[in-house]
């Protein structure tokens, strides 16, 4: 909770050459302690990536030892003519966009409620954040067997008085199931971010607005929402980065089915690599996914940073 320290040095009069000299000398003394971390990162991320690129040019199936050979770009051709791969791409987009939007909207709503002074607020906050702290695999099993099971599930039990029962939620609404579980899991993350934003809002301005006769909705639209913008943007960005890799819920609840309805890229990659043991094709898929992610992430980051600087300009 300390105020952000200013990074601007006090204006001092030093000759330009002296500055350049100290910078050169200081550069390496500052960089050397970073080297172990840098080498570590290269070893655990870049070398495996290069290996993956190499594997992706091989025909290599672990189930047929001794048949590994170089095939050039054949694996890539197979992927792009693979119908399931295209389905998986579409599903990945659905399973990223829908949960992110839903969790940011619901998360903002709950954060606004939690920002009010109510009895037992601390306990309430802890409880509401808990879905994020449950292990994803365990949560998936609870959803699958305790809540959504058509015979023993709680949801059907509670809906029975309303004439809805024996609905096989997981199979008849498979995509909605996955979206619901992901939203449930990631809403607390959004709540945390938005709540922090709300609590940094100046009470004076809100009070001034109230004195000026603005009602709640008006205050929210004209003051709170603009104030929350960077928080919402960061929530969306980070949410997308995490949710695009969703695997646990799909693996545990639907196993990618029925058919390929809930097969997203991470799950399809798992199937090709660890059920088909087709290392060549799985590596090629991995490479394609990484390239696509880098392109999309670069565009998204650029968009978001431009939004930030826009706001910075407006602030001036």
């Amino acid at each position: 909770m300390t105020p952000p320290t200013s990074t601007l040095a006090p204006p001092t009069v030093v000759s330009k050459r002296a500055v350049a000299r100290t910078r050169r000398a200081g550069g390496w003394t500052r960089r050397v302690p970073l080297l172990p971390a840098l080498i570590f990162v290269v070893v655990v991320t870049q070398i495996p990536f290069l290996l993956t690129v190499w594997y992706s040019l091989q025909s290599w199936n672990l189930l047929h030892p001794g048949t590994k050979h170089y095939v050039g770009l054949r694996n890539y051709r197979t992927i792009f003519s693979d119908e399931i791969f295209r389905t998986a791409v579409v599903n990945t987009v659905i399973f990223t966009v829908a949960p992110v939007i839903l969790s940011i909207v619901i998360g903002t709503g709950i954060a606004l409620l939690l920002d009010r002074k109510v009895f037992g607020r601390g306990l309430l906050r802890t409880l509401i954040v808990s879905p994020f702290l449950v292990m994803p695999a365990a949560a998936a099993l609870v959803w699958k067997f305790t809540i959504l099971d058509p015979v023993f599930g709680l949801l059907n039990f509670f809906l029975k008085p309303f004439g809805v029962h024996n609905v096989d939620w997981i199979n008849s609404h498979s995509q909605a199931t996955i979206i619901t579980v992901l939203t449930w899991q990631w809403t607390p993350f959004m709540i945390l971010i938005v709540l922090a934003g709300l609590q940094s809002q100046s009470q004076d301005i809100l009070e001034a607005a109230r004195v000026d006769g603005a009602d709640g909705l008006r205050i929210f639209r004209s003051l709170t929402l603009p104030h929350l913008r960077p928080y919402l943007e960061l929530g969306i960005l980070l949410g997308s980065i995490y949710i695009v890799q969703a695997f646990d819920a799909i693996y545990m609840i639907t196993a990618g089915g029925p058919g390929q309805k809930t097969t997203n890229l991470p799950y399809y990659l798992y199937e090709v690599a660890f059920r088909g043991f087709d290392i060549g094709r799985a590596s090629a898929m991995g490479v394609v996914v990484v390239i696509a992610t880098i392109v999309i992430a670069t565009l998204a980051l650029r968009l978001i940073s431009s939004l930030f600087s826009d706001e910075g300009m407006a602030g001036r």
Partner: protein
Amino acid sequence: MNAAMTRPSCIPVRGKRQRAVQVVAAASIAACALAACSSSSSGGGSGSGGGGKTGTITVAVVDNPLMSTIEKLTPAGFAASHPGIKVKFVTLDENTLRDQVTKDVAAGGGQFDVVMIGPNDIPTWSKNGWIKDLTSDASDPNYDVNDIIKPVRDALSADGKLYAVPFYGESSFLMYRKDLLKAAGQTMPANPTWDQVAAIAEKLNNPAKGVSGICLRGKTGWGENLAPLNTVVNTFGGQWFNTNWDPQLTADPFKQAVNFYVDLIKKAGERGAANDGFNECLNNMEQSKSAMWYDATVAASTLDAPPSPIAGKLGFAPAPVVKTSAAGWLWAWALAIEGSSKHQDAAWQFMNWATSKDYVKYDAQKNGWAAVPPGTRVSTYQNPEYQKAAADFAALTLKSMQSVDVNHPGVADQPYSGIQYVGIPEFADLGTKVSQEITAAIAGQESVDSALSKSQGYANQVAQSYK
């Protein structure tokens, strides 16, 4: 608290942003921690100690009831008499077990010492040297390898060498609630056909009371829904590949069989069948949510023995047929030693105990004779106490297991071995894809015709390398 307020007008934005970054950083650290603990599930296995008779052995088993029994019995029954050996169990569901174990043996990972595999793995795994030849270990007269039921022993051997020893063996048969059939005025024929079974299932189906006529597997996985379905396909006269390796998944008998299976589930099957595998149906039966169940014979050891709430209420009939005289499958969950294991002697010590006559007796002392691992040893079936305790299903289990023909289970000749699976290494992937389509058909998300024509396409890709 409100640093932003005291600063000039341009700063609040930055203060706000930094704050957002701090919050997010904290949140993402939490997220990373979660991700780490969820992905680092089962770590490396073999502990210290050389290749001798001692050390920690890691055993990968499937999460069926009899395996949780052995896990409970191991500390007192095995570890106490073998102080140098520590046994660590890794229990996984069927699909995950296959993925993990295949990955481990194929890559020589050495994560597991003892792995639980099935007959379909034996031909390729033995050829690749992924599992150890057990012939000389098992020739120990005390182990009495010839006591193992012959079809199972043959299924676990390749080129006359034994590569795995069965923990339990099974065929498939029909289990039904005698009391519910009687109340509905139905009788089960001694050798039922599928049409008769379907008719009885429709009579017993009672959605208002939450009781389904029959429980059938619909869960994705070649060892899940394809196991019972393939026995239906065989007896309808269908097959996966003809002798020229042409896929037959869109041929009439195959289509009829799948349509029959899917229709039966829709008319008289359990709710949510598309999610149900062996354990889910077992649960349905125990909770009296289903009146009949066509599945593995081993289920009887759990359902018809205390503390099961329906023990004694069950009747058993051979696998229903259409065009063949028998339709049961043959399966064994067997233990094998990974070729890359560093504790092969200790591993054999454990397997010797787990699949011995003594284990059967020890289990019987603790849990009663009806609950011992079935389908492995002739001596179990000759034991008068077992005959008495498992009177309802023991003889039928043995007969079903001995009536199978792994190389010719259907009507036409087939170029592969296997009843409820196709004995080729690609089947894990092919079977999973096809079973996904079947699950979609059962869930009503896709028509049987479209599911099968997609499946035919997958099978075509695999068949190319065999033609």
